[in-house]
């Protein structure tokens, strides 16, 4: 009986990590929209295409990352997000759905960061808050 539970937990763990549809959706989104610049394994290329493995910098910006993905990063002075290296534009993805955004964030988080995972409700609130702030 003990053994059964042990295996059940392992299977549950493995399936959560690798085969859930949210993980696959996030992976798919990453490969189509992010991997060209940030690399197949998040390695980036120099500073021009930043690595996603700089966890210290990214962790301190955990709550901004969803907004970066939506609005992009523009190096010109009038833009909302200028980025750290101020070199090149990261394209905006204004039409991404909140669910897709959440899956993408959790995929990247699971692969490279291991921060607190993103909840749909939480991401939704971040976006609403940001939009309200922009209006003022």
């Amino acid at each position: 009986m003990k053994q059964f539970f042990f295996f059940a937990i392992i299977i549950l763990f493995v399936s959560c990590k690798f085969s859930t549809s949210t993980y696959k959706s996030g992976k798919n989104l990453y490969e189509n929209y992010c991997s060209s610049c940030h690399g197949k394994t998040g390695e980036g290329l120099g500073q021009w295409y930043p690595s996603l493995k700089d966890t210290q910098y990214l962790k301190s910006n955990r709550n901004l990352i969803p907004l970066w993905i939506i609005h992009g990063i523009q190096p010109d002075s009038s833009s909302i997000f200028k980025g750290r290296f101020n070199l090149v534009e990261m394209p905006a993805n204004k039409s991404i759905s909140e669910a897709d955004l959440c899956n993408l964030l959790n995929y990247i988080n699971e692969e490279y960061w291991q921060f607190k995972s993103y909840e749909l409700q939480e991401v939704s609130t971040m976006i609403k808050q940001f939009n309200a702030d922009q209006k003022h």
Partner: protein
Amino acid sequence: MNILTLSNSIRLKSNLKLLLLLSILFTFSCKKKELQILGVPTIQDSQTIYPVIPEFEYFNQDSQRISLQSLGYNIHIASFFFTSCPTICPKVMRSMSRIADLFADKNNISYLCFSLDSKRDSIPRLKEYYDKVGLNNKNFHLLRGIDMNDSKKLAQHYLSTASEDPEAAGGINHSGWILLVDKNRHLRSYADGTNTEDVDRFIGDIKILLNEKN
């Protein structure tokens, strides 16, 4: 009469066998792959003439004038890009950088990346890109474009396309080929710069070209 034809046909059969054996031997002895010259040839005075990359001169990231002549007509590897390209260029550049790293000890290969964005990609911007991508190879040249018309013409010689397209991400549509040009300015191989396996095959082709005698 009958006997004669029979013996003839036997001779023919054995000749065929010999031919087959010879051809098998031949294919085995020619295991070494040779690179063809690419492009559509023309016949002039009963000589086959293959297209060549025309002479050009562009400024690189260090404001040096770079031409086929200044490169000593060495082997070069070419691709097209622009620094604000968010789609295929980063992948192609990653492949170019990988190839340049692999052949870092070979001084007779140049790497030419032609910028297609003459408006935004100034020499200082190309320099910044060179530094920040970390290319760091004196044979690696990012070349400033003159205008789209010129780029289009050049791209055609490299079997590539380039065009302005407001719908495309970054405003420019172009192909992601990486091309290998020999000392005689002939195209010898190409690969899809976004495809790692294809680039691996291409790297093999570079080695074959390096081993060619002429």
